[in-house]
């Protein structure tokens, strides 16, 4: 079993690390406090090719493997989880979904600008009264012959306002229940779409999250992805891939907090020596190191399975569940190690702790991941 990275993977990781440590770090605190969208950074990352990493070069993507994607996501997330969630939604939900299941025409028209990062994608599934219980979603897409008519409200949409291309999940045949759900590529600027205010969130505040309302929005027939009734399966399959991105994000948040805690422990003195020399602190760091190593291995295994066209749904659920849970534990401990300094914004770790919490909730709560895993265990 070869646990070494290729030269290309190492270069990709270093490029992501360099951008994060030189550029993102400069204004991350201000953007978090004031909820400022990272427009300049998204443009730079698009130019570097980070927003279409997994897309085939035929469609202007980087043609990279998922392992490279995990490495890049980790490095960006160590510094800025708002930017990495924008990257993750674009790469492993929207681009992935269209590339896997779209027609040639859909890929030409929509995938290429997304892969180049000229347009940003958003994935619209959750609603005010349907999160984990996705099949009880109420947005409708009436079949009107040569177009569909969308009505409803979607909630908690990352890139809700800044996206140019939406993937919208909606019900066409209520009598067929989840088999009557479809997914559509929708132009953000279609008539009838309105967007709620930028949500005032606990963390990842630089990434814009909105409700999106559809009022008689016309969607061309050819914008439906897959067969009639494929939408729910599409959503579940796409989220499986997206899960790896979020697992890598959680890993990065944890690793970023851990690296800061190690540095602080080597510098801060108490009772006559650096606190790293006190076993209470050293043992905390050891525990954190093990958790991060485990999370990383789970992420890389899920990525490897996906790259080798093997079933990866359970592996990605395990990676996301574990990485999110340890991100919460590691960031909390990092704040503790920093003491009073950990409680102020300047030292970053309180922000990382706020960011970690969301990884246990979105793109499938930890509880949903346990359903996926336990169903596999008990089959």
């Amino acid at each position, binding site marked *: 079993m070869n646990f070494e990275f290729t030269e*290309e993977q190492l*270069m990709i990781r270093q490029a992501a690390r360099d*951008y994060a440590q030189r550029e993102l770090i400069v204004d991350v605190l201000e953007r978090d406090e004031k909820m400022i969208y990272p427009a300049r950074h998204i443009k730079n990352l698009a130019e570097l090719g980070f927003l279409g990493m997994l897309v085939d070069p035929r469609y202007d993507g980087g043609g990279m493997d998922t392992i490279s994607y995990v490495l890049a996501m980790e490095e960006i997330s160590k510094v800025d989880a708002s930017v990495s969630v924008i990257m993750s939604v674009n790469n492993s939900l929207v681009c992935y979904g269209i590339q896997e299941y779209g027609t040639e025409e859909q890929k030409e028209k929509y995938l290429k600008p997304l892969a180049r990062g000229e347009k940003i994608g958003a994935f619209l599934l959750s609603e005010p009264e349907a999160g984990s219980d996705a099949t009880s979603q109420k947005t409708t897409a009436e079949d009107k012959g040569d177009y569909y008519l969308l009505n409803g409200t979607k909630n908690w949409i990352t890139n809700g306002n800044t996206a140019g291309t939406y993937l919208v999940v909606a019900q066409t045949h209520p009598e067929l229940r989840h088999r009557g759900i479809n997914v559509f590529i929708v132009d953000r600027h279609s008539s009838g779409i309105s967007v709620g205010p930028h949500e005032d969130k606990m963390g990842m505040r630089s990434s814009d999250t909105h409700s999106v309302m559809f009022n008689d929005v016309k969607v061309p027939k050819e914008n439906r992805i897959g067969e009639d009734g494929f939408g729910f399966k599409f959503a579940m399959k796409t989220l499986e891939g997206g899960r790896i991105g979020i697992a890598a994000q959680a890993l990065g948040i944890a690793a970023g907090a851990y690296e800061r805690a190690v540095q602080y422990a080597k510098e801060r003195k108490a009772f006559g020596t650096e606190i790293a020399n006190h076993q209470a602190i050293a043992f905390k760091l050891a525990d954190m190191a093990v958790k991060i190593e485990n999370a990383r291995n789970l992420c890389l295994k899920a990525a490897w399975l996906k790259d080798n066209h093997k079933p990866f749904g359970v592996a990605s659920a395990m990676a996301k569940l574990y990485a999110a849970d340890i991100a919460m534990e590691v960031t909390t401990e990092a704040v503790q190690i920093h003491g009073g300094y950990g409680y102020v914004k300047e030292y970053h770790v309180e922000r990382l702790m706020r960011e970690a919490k969301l990884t246990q909730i979105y793109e499938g709560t930890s509880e949903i991941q346990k359903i996926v895993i336990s169903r596999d265990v008990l089959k």
Partner: protein
Amino acid sequence: MKILVCISNVPDTTTKIVIGTDGKNINTAGIQWIINPWDELALTRALELKDAGKISEVVVANVGTAITEATLRKSLATGADRAIRVNTEPADAWTVTSNLAEVVKNEPFDIILCGIESSDHNGSSVGGLLAGMLDLNLISSVSGLDIENEKLTVQREIDGGKEILETQGPVLLVIQKGIAIVPRIPSMRGIMQARTKPLQIVEATSSESMTETVQVTLPPEKGKCKMIDAENAGEVIRLLREEAKVL
């Protein structure tokens, strides 16, 4: 115009240096190798000039063993068109330079860029030696380079200010910080295409070195910092006179 950027492969700047068992070299086990920071800035400026249409080809060259190829491929990933590795241990500046000179003799360049020093040996010799061997004009401490219609405008750092010079190729420029602000990050496309670009390995024409390393040691431990209260100026004077003996 064709530009050659001479690249040195150095240990990552955060490496904890360990002296080898023979006391004449550092222990290279586990070292992460990177491009010499000055060379990285030189390469960035060369690529900026290429993007602006002033340079047609950027070539990078290194004298070293196979461990330097990752650094060369990163240079290709960042945008260099071609890489050359002369296969030998870079024993000292003379070995490096005499081999680079042979490469250049086979392929004249309009501009050659050499970093002012490498972050490992800090020898500051290669640029000057190379210009001498090739009988090229040399400008040192270059912190700015612009090209217009084959004419080079070069900025260099001097005591108390900056000097602006005009010249034309062929010329060798020894590069100082300021030549570029932020080292270029390779794009994803660049990384994936790096292996499609030529990396030519040439055998060394000379492994003659002019120096012999007698000993390598770590620097002495830094003294501890003594903190003295602001009101206690007398104590500062006493220490400077009686302990540091500088008054």
